[in-house]
């Protein structure tokens, strides 16, 4: 089992003074500490216009800062939005390769297509087309990285032959992933031979089904590049020796994240389309789904909030169903003081990570 951090870079209101700088600096400090503690990866989202929820519109720059301040931890785009109105595919390939070179071959490239009307509408993207665009991107990126020269005549872009530079350090290319929020996308990942990057809270049963289907199907894949057969899930991390305090503090963080997530304007709500069959929520569903506005989010199964023993038990359950890595949100809109986040990471590294492998100290 591998462990990663997952950064949304959520910023609390009011957006005054240096609040964004403080959030970014805190995240960088968490990244440096995670690198020292033996965490395996850190992942950074790409979002646009999502006030408070995520001010991470230029993840490649944040990841470059992480690359310069860390030594061994792997750096994940979690994920690049694969529509040309936001990111031309050549620019995705170029930036990823540059980051891979600068980081010494530590890049993981997640791909996505965005799920909010706020973002798609802001860039005038037709929601009907995003799945086709994403599919085209994941098929051309490995070619851009591995072919000396590249030309393309396609749906979302066309170009004459050019040398796309630089080439990534990792050979044949950095691992590719796709974010999975709704059932079915794990099959898209498997069919293309790319990693299944879970970014929505899933129940044990749903994750077990998803992982089983993915493993079964990827055996028959028509790979778009080098096969990356891995399953990652999203979780929330707060670790404290006192389980009551862990629950109180950690669930406060989960509550803030869930509220901000629920307030996003999903594409499905604004724009009827067969291309978005779910709202794309990352947070768990309400505890009782009877339509009451008073309901709060349920505490997800297998959440990594608790004392070390509770967390080890939860992780072992995820491990038993074939999950390869767990990526954790460790704060939301700075609701937790930075010292508490760092202490939580240290305790996790000292008491939890060794249960799954050796060599972590704090």
């Amino acid at each position, binding site marked *: 089992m591998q462990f990663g951090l997952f950064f949304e870079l959520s910023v609390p209101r009011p957006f005054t003074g240096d609040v964004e700088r403080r959030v970014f600096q805190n995240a960088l400090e968490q990244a440096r500490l995670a690198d020292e503690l033996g965490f395996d990866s850190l992942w950074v989202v790409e979002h646009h216009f999502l006030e408070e929820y995520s001010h991470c519109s230029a993840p490649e720059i944040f990841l470059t800062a992480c690359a310069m301040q860390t030594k061994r931890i792997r750096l994940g785009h979690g994920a690049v939005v694969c529509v040309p109105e936001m990111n031309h595919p050549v620019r995705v390939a170029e930036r990823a390769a540059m980051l891979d070179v600068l980081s010494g071959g530590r890049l993981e490239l997640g791909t996505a297509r965005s799920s909010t009307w706020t973002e798609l509408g802001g860039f005038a993207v037709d929601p009907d087309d995003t799945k086709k665009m994403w599919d085209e991107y994941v098929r051309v990126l490995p070619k851009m990285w591995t072919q000396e020269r590249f030309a393309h005549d396609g749906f979302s872009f066309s170009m004459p032959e050019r040398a796309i530079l630089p080439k990534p350090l990792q050979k044949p290319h950095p691992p590719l992933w796709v974010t999975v929020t709704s059932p079915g996308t794990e099959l898209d990942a498997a069919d293309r031979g790319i990693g299944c990057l879970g970014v929505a809270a899933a129940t044990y049963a749903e994750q077990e089904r998803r992982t089983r289907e993915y493993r079964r199907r990827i055996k028959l894949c028509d790979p778009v590049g080098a096969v990356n057969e891995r399953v990652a899930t999203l979780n929330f991390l707060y670790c404290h020796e006192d389980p009551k305090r862990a629950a109180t503090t950690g669930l406060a963080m989960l509550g803030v994240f869930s509220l901000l997530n629920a307030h996003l304007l999903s594409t499905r709500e604004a724009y009827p389309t067969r291309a978005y069959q779910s709202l794309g929520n990352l947070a768990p569903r309400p505890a009782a789904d009877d339509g009451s506005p008073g*309901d709060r989010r349920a505490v997800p199964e297998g959440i990594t909030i608790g004392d070390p023993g509770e967390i080890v038990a939860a992780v072992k359950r995820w491990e038993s169903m074939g999950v390869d890595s767990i990526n954790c949100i460790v704060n939301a809109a700075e609701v937790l003081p930075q010292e508490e986040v760092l202490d939580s990471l240290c305790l996790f590294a000292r008491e939890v990570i060794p249960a799954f492998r050796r060599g972590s100290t704090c």
Partner: protein
Amino acid sequence: MLIGTASVEELAARAPVAQSLGGEPAACPQAEVLQVAYESASAHREAALPPALHPTDPPLVTWLFYRCATSPWGSFAMAQTRIECRSGLRLRAFLVSAVVDNAVAAEALQTRWGFATRPGEIALRRHYDSVRATVVADGATILDVVVADPDPLAPADVQYVANMNLAHTSRGLRLVQVEPGYQVHRVERGRPRVAAFDGAAWGDARVAPVHPVSASLAVADLTIPGVRFVCRPDVLAFEGTERVG
């Protein structure tokens, strides 16, 4: 977190009286349902909602038309102006007001579900490549919208959001959650263009459509069930939600 800042007292002044919440569901088979969504100017996104509700970003105004040939009150049409919002974690739409062309239906919709209604004329005109919807009240056109190039979608592709209707109830001033059910038989999506909209005539001059998003025209069995939840308008839904019945 964005929270509504509208004065509850000011909203209360134009809220209807709904003293008979609940009762039997109202079934309206084979209803025509037109929903038009526009982004709205964000300057007043908080000021348009009571403190119990959260605006979306960007703010979204939706116009929801029902044309029902069959209902417990006979044939009627209703047009609503709503602001998409959140109540707690739920997707909801705050009713600005509604126009109803049948007095008996209007009375029931107001007293049992808290719809703020006024009389008017509602027309849905189907052309080969467009649909035109107009609402006339007191002799003035207060909404005129054209939906161009309707194209079929699957019934599961369209989603409707429940209402929060502010009304004076037996429990006091409350947001009444109205959760119509839609058994969609067929649906099309088109491109909307608002030719006329008078926000003041609907009850809030600050509602200003600025950017078209989508429009859908469906035929659905519409059911308006009894009210299950009401919320205080002055506190967040986590504290102010009450179960009815």
